[in-house]
């Protein structure tokens, strides 16, 4: 039961072409909607039935998000796709853009139709040149085929779609930073409220969805919300792409039903490399809490199960670590990432991410004291609140939380290794 939604066409020759996409039913839903002038409400309901939850990380139900848009209010509205894909471990949207760009085009067309937007922007991270070119080609093909532009298929519906290229900033994946970036500014998240549905791109009502969320829409509508729901779990329908990376034999993107046991996913990915022992897994992209291998082997890949286990499904990037991994070194790497990627506006994040990175660095270098371990925990809580105490963060966007969750979880599950570094001024695991 793999590759049924966004990766449905992977097996085709040059699956990114219009011909390939249409050969497997592409654009038929759009045509149907336009011909029948399907009421927006019906589409929203179908999505709600499907329980498609946002694939960008937060898992917000897409149908509900679309229902916030006041479609019939006058004035420009926008649909924006988030192809910024910057969360370490995550590389699924890249493959959608490269191999199934028309699914995204069709998804954005349907989204535009549903929320009343006549213009869409797809924000692609600046490094994704090949995916960008594929998307550009897809847009050109679609336009040539009368699927984009004015009065699409004679329906009276106008829709233009443009790619916008980023230029290297993880924070632009945060939806309001992304809007700022399209507006030609630094990608600094906006304080909410107002939310984008009221005040979005250029101040106009805007809906932002992840690439995978939008690319899933045509297939959902073609087969029905119920079909999609039944692929997954009642609280989260469908299959989802998991990017499995790190110490596995067959790293890759796997589109599998939500709720699949991690065990099975690990097996698909060829198991732990060199037959070594599984030590730890970060199951949802670098921002979510790490889980020790034993715990992970008992968990299913869905939102609720992850929450119960003390972590999050996030973007579905599964980072696998074997027993040669030094957890201090890994945390040093993660903390360094957040320090580098903080946008710099909120005090706790700007000052705290650097502080965290420096403390972890000192621990790694064997130059820290036990006090530093407490300090590390303290600073992490001051940046992002305590995830385990369900305490929210103190910053405008979730990057502060994202920086603190790894710290708190690494200390929670692997404190011994940190203490070892303090005590012995070197690493507990030899192989790293």
């Amino acid at each position, binding site marked *: 039961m793999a590759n049924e939604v966004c990766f449905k066409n992977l097996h085709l020759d040059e699956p990114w072409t219009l011909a390939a996409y249409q050969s497997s039913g592409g654009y038929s839903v759009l045509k149907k909607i336009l011909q029948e002038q399907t009421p927006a409400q019906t589409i929203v309901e179908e999505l709600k039935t499907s329980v498609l939850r946002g694939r960008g990380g937060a898992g917000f139900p897409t149908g509900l998000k679309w229902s916030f848009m006041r479609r019939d209010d006058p004035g420009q509205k926008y649909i924006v796709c988030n192809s910024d894909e910057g969360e370490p471990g995550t590389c699924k949207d890249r493959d959608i853009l490269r191999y199934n760009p028309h699914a995204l085009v069709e998804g954005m067309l349907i989204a535009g139709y549903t929320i009343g937007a006549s213009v869409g922007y797809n924000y692609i991270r600046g490094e994704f040149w090949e995916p960008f070119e594929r998307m550009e080609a897809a847009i050109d093909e679609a336009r040539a085929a009368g699927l984009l532009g004015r009065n699409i298929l004679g329906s009276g519906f106008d829709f233009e779609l443009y790619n916008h290229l980023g230029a290297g900033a993880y924070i632009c994946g945060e939806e309001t930073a992304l809007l700022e970036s399209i507006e030609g500014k630094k990608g600094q998240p906006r304080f909410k409220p107002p939310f984008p549905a009221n005040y979005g791109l250029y101040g106009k009502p805007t809906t932002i969805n992840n690439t995978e969320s939008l690319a899933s829409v045509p297939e959902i509508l073609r087969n029905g919300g119920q079909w999609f729901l039944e692929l997954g779990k009642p609280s989260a329908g469908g299959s989802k792409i998991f990017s499995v990376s790190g110490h596995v034999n067959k790293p890759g993107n796997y589109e599998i039903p939500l709720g699949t046991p991690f065990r099975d996913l690990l097996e698909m990915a060829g198991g732990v490399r060199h037959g070594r022992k599984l030590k730890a897994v970060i199951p949802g992209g670098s921002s979510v809490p790490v889980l020790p291998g034993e715990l992970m082997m008992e968990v299913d890949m869905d939102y609720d199960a992850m929450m119960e286990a003390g972590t999050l499904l996030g973007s579905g990037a599964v980072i696998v670590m074997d027993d040669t991994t030094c957890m201090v070194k890994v945390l040093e790497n993660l903390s360094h990432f957040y320090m580098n990627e903080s946008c710099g506006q909120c*005090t706790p994040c*700007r*000052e705290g991410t650097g502080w965290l990175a420096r*403390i972890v660095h000192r621990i790694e270098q064997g130059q820290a004291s036990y006090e530093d371990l407490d300090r590390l925990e303290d600073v992490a809580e001051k940046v992002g609140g305590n995830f385990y105490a369900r305490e*929210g963060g*103190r910053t*405008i966007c979730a990057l502060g939380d994202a920086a603190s969750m790894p710290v708190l979880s690494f200390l929670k599950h692997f404190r011994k290794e940190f203490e070892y570094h303090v005590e012995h001024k070197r690493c507990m695991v030899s192989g790293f």
Partner: protein
Amino acid sequence: MSDKPTVTIEIDGKTLQADPGAMLIDIADANGIVIPRFCYHKKLSVAANCRMCLVEVEKAPKPLPACATPVTDGMKVFTRSAKAIAAQKATMEFLLINHPLDCPICDQGGECELQDVAMGYGGDVSHYTEGKRVVLDKNIGPLIATEMTRCIHCTRCVRFGEEIAGVRELGATGRGERTRIGTYVEQTVASELSGNVIDLCPVGALTAKPSRYSARAWELRQHDSIAAHDCVGSNISIHTFRGQVNRVVPRDHEEINECWIADRDRFSYQALSAKERLRTPLIKVDGEWKETDWQTALEMAQAAITKTISDYSPDQVGILVSPNATLEEMHLLRKIANRLQCHNIDHRLRQRDFAHQQDMPRFPSLGCSIAALEELSNVLLIGSNPRKEQPMIAHRLRKAAAKGAQICLINQRDYDLAMPVAASVTASYRGMVEQMANLAKAIPNLDVAALTPEAKALYSKAVVSDAIGEIASRICADGDSLILLGNQAMANPYFSLIESFARAVAKVSNSRFGYLTEGANTAGAWLSGMVPHRDIAGEPLDTTALNAQAMLQEPRNLYLLHNVEPEFDTADAALALKAMHDADHVICLTPFVSSEMKRYASILLPIAAFAETSGSYVNIEGRLQSFTGHTPVGENQARPAWKVLRVLGNSLEVEDCDFISSTEVRDALLSRVGEMTPDNQASVTASAELPAAGTPGPQAVYLGSEVNIYRTDNVTRRASALQQTPDARDNAVRINSATAERLGIGSARQVSVKYNGTQVSADLLVDETVADDSVWVYAATEFTRKLGPMFGVVELEAN
């Protein structure tokens, strides 16, 4: 408005009513509940980035920033709960880790918001052990000192530039902990409002360069005053240290300057300690200057005046008064003039055309309140560069434009007003008159009969261009419109024609009509009779004596100059200087002495400068504002001018002149003036004639000008830091490329400007903002001093 719905919220157990949607921090502020903050500022957009104002809100999973959280009914807020305090303390700790903790050597020490808030949480908030960030400083000009290591990234200064000054000069470059506030490249901040970031900066990152390290905040004494350089009347506080003015800061007055002041008002005080300060009375004896005592000097002055009157006639006396003089000084001057039966008195020193002076209102005013400018729908500015002439007015217009007001301009240059402009027409000073006729033509149903005969003649030849049509339609559009004549319109040689058209247009378009005047007290000058045709309280005189221009064209035997430097403060410097040099006596009441002055004057009476004297100004709204002064100490024998004039008046046997305080002088005048209601209603009955353009020589162009923002009066001209700014240093002669082409001087770097046998060289700048057929310069500069007039037909040749 009274039955607006409110919501009920609770902060720290207090039940409060609030407007729905108001921000929590505003409600707390209004009710005296203290919430710490750094990025929040009531006049700036909400950034919510410092995270200092985090408070606990019932049912919210995380602490919320009070500055960005709208109140909702039933909301329960805790600003001092354990959760709130923990969040605030954490922010404080983060702010301090990279902030130097050397308050004793910081210029902001004692008035630092960071220091204050930090103290509130007890001293020991940080257990930071890593190295601190060091930020290299860039020189951003003569006014603002930077110490960016102290910056806490609140971005107030950045938002100020974008939202208030209208020009983004400071920014936050880089990202994360490498974010730097500054100009990025070494570059002087040039906004005329830039100094406000000094007040906005909560820490010692941006401080006042001129007063840096000169005194500690707690050593300063403060008195309230009124800014003395434009017609706004911005409220200021003057801080003195050991008897010297150490700095000037804005004083909040929502209806006037809100919480801002222009750089000119902030830094002009530096002139008080200028080298050219006149500290003792000086008299010229046999061509030699001698220091003397007050009594001798005043006796000599009295004798000179009396002798002139007896030898010739009262008419041989001319009195020129700065529009920055106080109401009290003006009242005494008018009393002296009346006693002498000499009405040759004027404050309109840069005006050329007095044809319709009888038609002028009792005093010129704005046409609405300063605050009401924000609410206008359409504004037409004629001959005005408010950004440099009345910066706080420009700020209000900027706010209006941000709310959608249509701003239209008819100017000699297409000025960058740092606000959206709906339509703009540029023309030479002469062309502006024709454009006014064109505008009148473009307006349907104009009452042509209301025009003066000279205006009618122009009207009949007028043609409507697209741009003028655009302005006409905007000014006639729905909503509240205002037509404003600015400094440059009033200095225009055809002021009366411009006003005749402007008034006719205002009338038919139902627009308000107003003026933006020079100096701090032009309204007061009219009310106290500082014109040759009106008496105290603006009452008419039977005769019309000589106006400022006529007094110079028809030289007098004796001049009394009150705070005036003729070479810079008059419409034609050459004319004025010649008159001064030819006079038998020039008596100067002045805080400063220049070498030029020493050449033409005979008696120099040192008077207290701005900030040193008490007095009153009437601003452009007709608002009377009185202030006190601080007396200079030490060697300086300068006296408040009202006292000097009182004694001079006594010696000239002026009646009812026994005032013992400036308040008495003011009240005596006010009792005559009565209500000071602004009323600009008037129609123009007489005007100048626009001579035929003729066939000017091939090299001829219209010389036009604007008084340089930092050369407006004797004080600003001596403010040393202001003189280092790009605005003050700009002394180029400007011309657009088409005109340069026509004159064949396109590639010249230097040109000679010739007028009336005089020739002055200057750097040439090709600048497309300048109108066709004109050459534009800054007036009140060395250039105009040498050449002469502010407006006129000149010849231009490449050097």
